[in-house]
């Protein structure tokens, strides 16, 4: 049985209340919009990659606590890292939250392990991974073109019934 209480831990509630790197960046080198049709949530991610390293990152949007905290902690986790390091972290985060790999087996996940509980909440996995999808979309877009999450190859369809 999932330990649901572990999902709404202090650190997540704190990042929801006081999101870090919240806002937009004027001239990002990469930008994407992520959308979760299940709940209407959407976030934007702006990134500045400078000589292969993420020198600045920001996010903005309307979302639930899980999504906002995930985005906030994502920005603090990848800031200063190389794009390759960030991409490794994206893969580890997705593997952990979808339950494919336990968080103990994710060498770079660190304190992002607080999100491991969502693997037992299928309807909430999307909330946690939306920022990471969006960052991935930003990296893989041509120039600064926006990419909708629907066009994101990592995105799986979500019904609205």
């Amino acid at each position: 049985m999932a330990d649901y209480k572990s999902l709404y831990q202090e650190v997540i509630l704190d990042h929801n209340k006081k999101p870090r790197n919240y806002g937009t960046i004027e001239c990002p080198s990469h930008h994407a919009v992520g959308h979760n049709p299940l709940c209407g949530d959407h976030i934007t991610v702006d990134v500045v990659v400078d000589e292969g390293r993420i020198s600045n990152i920001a996010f903005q949007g309307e979302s639930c606590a899980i999504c906002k905290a995930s985005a906030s902690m994502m920005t603090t986790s990848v800031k200063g890292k190389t794009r390759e390091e960030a991409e490794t972290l994206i893969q580890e985060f997705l593997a952990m939250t979808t339950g494919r790999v336990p968080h103990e087996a994710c060498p770079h996940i660190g304190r992002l392990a607080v999100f491991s509980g969502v693997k037992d909440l299928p309807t909430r996995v999307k909330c946690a991974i939306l920022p990471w999808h969006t960052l991935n979309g930003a990296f893989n877009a041509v120039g600064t073109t926006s990419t909708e999450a629907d066009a994101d190859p990592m995105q799986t369809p979500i019904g609205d019934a």
Partner: protein
Amino acid sequence: MNAIQTALETRSSSLLDVENIRADFPILGITVNDKPLVYLDNAASSQMPRQVIDRLVHYQTKQHANIHRGVHYLSEVATSEFEVARRKLQHFINAREEREVIFTSGTTEAINLVMHGYGRKYICAGDEIILTTLEHHANIVPWQMLAEEKGARIRVVPVNDAGELLVDEYEKLFNERTKFVGVTHVSNALGSINPVKEMIAFAHARGVPVLVDGAQAAPHTAVDVQDLDCDFYAFSGHKLCGPTGIGILYGRASILEDMQPFKGGGDMILSVTFEKTTYNTIPHKFEAGTPPIAAAIGLGAAVDYLSGIGMDAIAAHEHALLKYATDQVQSMPGVRIIGTAGQKAAVLSFAVNGVHPHDIGTLLNQEGIAVRTGHHCAQPVMQRFKVPATSRASFAFYNTLDEVDALVAGIRNVQKIFT
């Protein structure tokens, strides 16, 4: 009056023996996250009593074969039981004739049937279809598809801040191009009960037929299609304590007879050659292929069950639950009820300041409480009330005041966690 007094009054005035009724529903006894299930998502789907489950088992173990075909024993039994179910549904909605009752897969298919069978035949370029802001996507999207195909236009009846349709505005939308009206009897997102009888009379005075989406109304109130005088009435079995995959389209016989078939196939024909096919009579013209026989028979048992309790008693109990819940929730600081129509079915949509509905849903689920969070397939309603989504508690006749108390305590807990 304080909550306890209200509760005492409600408890003593309730017409239902809820404890005994709950014993009919095996699923209400389960636990979720080690807490007793509090099921408040009845507007999405209701639960099934033992009587319906047993009927399904009896059918599958003693009566199943394909219908309207074989001359053998089982086929005759299955056909007879299927048609008995149709008559039960006829009486449930007080249709004049059983051939006016068409089995569909649900409300969505029923509306699509009308769009294809009626809309594509009679609605032309420049014609107008009137819908309302309160429609479920199922009563919007088919008409948009038709409008796009034909070059027709959708007009939308607005609502006031309480979530009540503006009937004056509805009447102003009519002109010589108005060819069809689609209106929901009860809003799934807000619970508003719409004045459909008056709206139908107004449309009929101008020769315009009306489809009523009854998905949320049929489970909560006695439906009389003759009294409403509607041309079409659509509803789903799984919101009526019946199985999924079955629903009803009521249609006025004279209109159904002139309509185009929706799906082609077996059972909907009288004769087929490669030169010409002659369609069957109604309702069979609209029931191509093998229908969900067990589900139809199960739905027959479900309406027997509901009629046994009495739709008026069900409505009265649900109204008492709604009033008790509304009184409590509207007095909570930081909680806003969305949808405050004077006439409401047992739906309570609400927003909690600073907390996203999905977080509310997950935290309530932690307490064993099932509510629906999201846009409820009614995005125009969300846009009208400027919220991305709401949390929705929807009550059935088997819910109790204690369960309302659990919901209120659950919302308080959410607020505590997020402060």
